[in-house]
């Protein structure tokens, strides 16, 4: 689905990531860890075409990112649900509309999708806040809304950057369960997180692999967790 082939990335100074080769298999479940500032967000951005590698090749659904037009990228994004680390919304639209945004922009606003929306909102605990505006949400509520927005299209891949940084343990378990369910439906999941307890919990439910960014390289973390 998403392939990185000897990829390097630099924001202008030294190389932040280099020589990264990685093939995201359909139906896999990955965690991404690494110290703060090691390049997890950068790695995810490479994976959904927000950044173009300074060396090497990124292939998104078998097409090289460099050769894709802006519209190609837009179409690919409909198959990739992303939870940003700093979640952003359309601040003038209520939460429900924001969560449904991917449906709206791709012209899919059928009745059954909307039923889906309600169920999703209550799963992430935002049923009572569905009519609130995003600036009126708490930090954790924003993260949950962002996760709901990322999965509403039922995309092939879900990339979540620190989706549980601001939610309590119970809620993070609930969100994890949602992602595990989706993974069991065949979706590919990658979660960047610092929360080792979350990774441990996930390992009991699903066959998750842990990637670690260290020294500009992507490594498969062993059983040391």
């Amino acid at each position, binding site marked *: 689905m998403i392939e990185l082939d000897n990829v390097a990335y630099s924001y202008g100074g030294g190389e932040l990531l280099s020589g990264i080769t990685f093939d995201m298999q359909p139906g896999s479940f990955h965690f991404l860890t690494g110290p703060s500032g090691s390049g997890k967000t950068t790695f995810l*951005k490479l994976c959904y*075409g*927000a*950044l*173009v590698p300074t060396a090497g090749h990124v292939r998104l659904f078998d097409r090289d990112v460099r050769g894709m037009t*802006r*519209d190609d*990228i*837009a*179409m*690919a*994004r*409909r198959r990739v649900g*992303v939870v*940003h680390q700093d979640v*952003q*919304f*359309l*601040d*003038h*639209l209520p939460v429900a*509309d924001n969560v449904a*945004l*991917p449906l*709206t*922009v*791709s012209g899919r*606003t059928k009745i059954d999708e909307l039923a889906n929306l309600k169920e999703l909102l209550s799963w992430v605990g935002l049923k009572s806040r569905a009519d609130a505006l995003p600036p009126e949400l708490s930090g954790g509520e924003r993260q949950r809304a962002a996760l709901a*927005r990322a999965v509403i*299209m039922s995309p092939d891949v879900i990339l979540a950057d620190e989706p549980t940084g601001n939610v309590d343990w119970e809620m993070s378990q609930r969100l994890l369960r949602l992602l595990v369910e989706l993974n069991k439906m065949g979706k590919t999941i990658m979660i960047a997180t610092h929360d080792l307890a979350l990774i441990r919990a996930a390992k009991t439910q699903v066959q998750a692999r842990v990637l670690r960014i260290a020294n500009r390289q992507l490594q498969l973390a062993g059983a040391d967790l």
Partner: protein
Amino acid sequence: MKFTPSDMLSMLVGDPQADRMVPPTGFTARLTVITAAIMAFLAVFALALSLAAGRLADRWGEELARSATLRISAPAEQMADQTAAALRVLETTAGVASARALSDDEQRALLEPWFGPDVPVDTLPIPQLIEVIEGDPGFDAQGLRLRLQAEVPGAVLDDHTRWRRPLVEAASRLRLLGWTSIALIFAAMAAMITLAANAALAANAQVIAVLRLVGARDSYIAQAFVRRYTLRALSGAGIGMLAGLIAVALLPAAQAEGGFLTGLGFTGPGWLWPLIIPPLAAVVGFVATQAAARRTLRELS
């Protein structure tokens, strides 16, 4: 990038869903509307000024161009004959709409400023004046002079060229001034709407980023903004134009005593001219927002 009117139309009627993506109020939205309104208001005044200048120039040019004077100096006893002969010549001259010998009273009125009310016109050897009104394609002054020379030796044709030249020059200067100011105001209007649309888009960078993140295509995003801001420029300019028209109509003494200087205002079909302002503002808003949206989008991966 090129835009045909049909592009513009399809954008304007386009997806009402996309419309909701752009924040409906806020300072930047008001900025566009109010800017368009103010500039349209000024443009109405510039138009009024320009049209008034044009009218004035036309009148000066025309009044003088359309009339000429034939002066017949002859011994008293031949005066009537020569006058009749001259009128005959004039009647058969192509380009002369009408010709008329001035009556004694009229001649006296003309002379009054110089000689007081009691000029003895009848006893004085004053030339007879004939007022010649030119027709539309005008007459050939040189040809007329030749014919007159042959048939009415005492006639001198004065086609007012000498008087006309400086007035026509002044009038065309006035016209230039009017069009300069209108060009300036329109350019300023375009610049201001462009600025406002750009500022509005800059303020909405987050909206654009979010839409792009969830997989909206560039054309969808651009359309949402372009539609909104085009309509805002249109409605703002419409409001400004109406306000301007009302203000011009209320301007003191606009059309009174129209004697020497016509009032600042619109006459007849001139009232239709300001109607081009809102569509013009809309086109400017359309092009500016389109360009700004594309530029903002290109900076975003």
